[in-house]
């Protein structure tokens, strides 16, 4: 079932958008509502930092560490 889309995102919706944002998959409207959510939600902001760290870590795999 498709979840209702509104300006107020749940963290679960935001987590999908954060992930898609790492793959340049967000439209302008989504980027704006996500930015709004991240500004008021510490947990999603932490989640985004974790995914950014995951990217740094996986890029280093195999470089001799």
């Amino acid at each position, binding site marked *: 079932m498709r979840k209702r889309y509104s300006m107020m995102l*749940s963290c679960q919706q935001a987590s999908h958008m954060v*992930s*898609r944002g790492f793959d340049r998959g967000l439209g302008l409207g989504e980027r704006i509502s996500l930015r709004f959510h991240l500004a008021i939600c510490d947990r999603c902001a*932490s*989640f985004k*930092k974790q995914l950014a760290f995951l990217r740094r*870590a996986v890029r280093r795999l195999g*470089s001799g*560490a």
Partner: protein
Amino acid sequence: MNDFRSAVEGQRPYLLRFAALQLRDRHAAEDAVQETLLAALAAEASFAGRSNLRTWLTGILKHKIIDAIRRAGSETAREVAVGSDADFDALFDQTGHWAEMPVWKNPDASLEQSQFFKTLEECLERLPAKTARAFMLREHLGFETDEICKELAVTPTHCWVLLYRARMALRTCLDVNWFGK
């Protein structure tokens, strides 16, 4: 065996582990590594002056892995996706907010520890094969999403779902097995 040959051969176990992580197929991984070692031995001159043999070999291996994924493409397309987003529902409360979200303090210090990468590899090994391939194509090999869709023969939406599942599973796995310890 000359020095170069034995040094290259000495990297075989590492390369095999690296290839197996991404291909999830022992035979395909062995083939990719064998091709890499042969290519490396034939190209000894082009290694001259480079400092890190492992990095150089891994660079060759990445191309062989991409070739292997392409060859396996038709089989991958038939593979049934396992798992669903319901697997992650437990991370959220009933209103869709994070049930908890631990803050990882100074995570980049972990990047200096070989034990961390061992944990990361173990977490990657637990992902379903197709999810792992999509994730490694994106994050390790730097493919764009539309290229991944093509390689794995999936729709863009499915591609994003695979990447989401991989990221959610990996952050949870790292949280439990590394940062939570």
